[in-house]
């Protein structure tokens, strides 16, 4: 789940957060098989199932999360993902949210800066760089767009293109890297789930009228 900014007042924010969590859960549930298929091609085939378990856990706690201040909710949500996804994706998505939460707790940081720092932390966690065929190939360009203040509606239409770019990449991290050249021609499942979640959050932001 990638959150662009905090909308409106506390009540609206709580309701919005609950909706975003449900929308992300639904998006992952709908695409579970596709994510598993992508992972089966170049990994161990469980990415969709793992993500679904993580998002279901998040959804079951959405009321508690919605009642929290935004930064605190991000930290709690990150911990839930770490504890429930059960693959390398758990620590990666978890780190993203934990770091967003921590960053938002620092006075004076704008959301794009917070997001950029969180993406750097994810890269450190996975010891990966852009171009390695991972979810970072979605997160880095997404971060650049946030810095440029691209409208969420426009961003929602762009993120899948970032994931598509991983098709021609050779995997340098994770299990897909064992395949070497044979990993070329397949979309990275982590990039796919990341694009899916980012697009979902962007659509929810658009509907909430947050620019």
């Amino acid at each position, binding site marked *: 789940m990638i959150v662009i900014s905090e909308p409106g007042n506390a009540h609206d924010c709580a309701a919005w957060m609950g909706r975003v969590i449900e929308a992300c859960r639904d998006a992952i549930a709908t695409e579970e098989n596709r994510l598993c298929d992508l992972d089966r091609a170049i990994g*161990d085939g*469980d990415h969709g*199932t*793992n993500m679904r*378990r993580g998002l279901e856990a998040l959804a079951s706690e959405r009321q508690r999360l919605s009642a929290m201040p935004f930064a605190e909710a991000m930290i709690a949500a990150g911990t839930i993902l*770490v*504890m*429930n996804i*059960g*693959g*390398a994706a*758990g*620590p*990666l998505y*978890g*780190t993203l949210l934990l770091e967003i939460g921590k960053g938002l707790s620092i006075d004076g940081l704008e959301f794009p800066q917070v997001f950029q720092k969180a993406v750097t932390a994810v890269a450190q*966690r*996975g010891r990966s760089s852009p171009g390695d065929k991972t979810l970072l190939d979605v997160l880095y360009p997404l971060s650049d767009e946030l810095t440029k203040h691209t409208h969420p509606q426009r961003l929602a239409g762009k993120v899948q293109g970032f994931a598509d770019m991983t098709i021609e990449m050779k995997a340098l*991290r*994770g*299990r897909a890297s064992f395949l070497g050249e044979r990993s070329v021609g397949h979309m990275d499942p982590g990039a796919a789930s990341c694009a899916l979640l980012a697009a979902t959050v962007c659509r929810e932001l658009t509907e909430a009228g947050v620019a």
Partner: protein
Amino acid sequence: MTGGRENVGIVIVSHSPLVARGAADMVRQMVGDSVPLAWCGGNPAGGLGTDTGAILKAIEEAWSEAGVAIFVDLGGAETNSEMAVEMVDKGRAGRIVICNAPIVEGAVIAAAEASGGASLAKVVATAQELSPT
């Protein structure tokens, strides 16, 4: 787990509970109860994978004031172990090392070293000698 509380502890983290348990059995055969030992394997749903919560519990079980050496198999086991170490309280986290060594051979050799009362640094170095540099 009993005895040997003063020796460095060993934690084994595999995607497969069978691999983790099997590696732990081999460690026990080698060193008996002379080192604290714990293993975990499988994701939170019981399938193949790794579980940060289970890793935290294993660290707790194998805890020794001399420290803990963790042995992992594939990527997610390492990433989840790193996450778990960060979630342990700061005083302990500095005494936990995730070893760059093969899971079975590393754990057995590390345990043999630990059973003689070696320091965490020595236990880790001995296990990591197994890895190509």
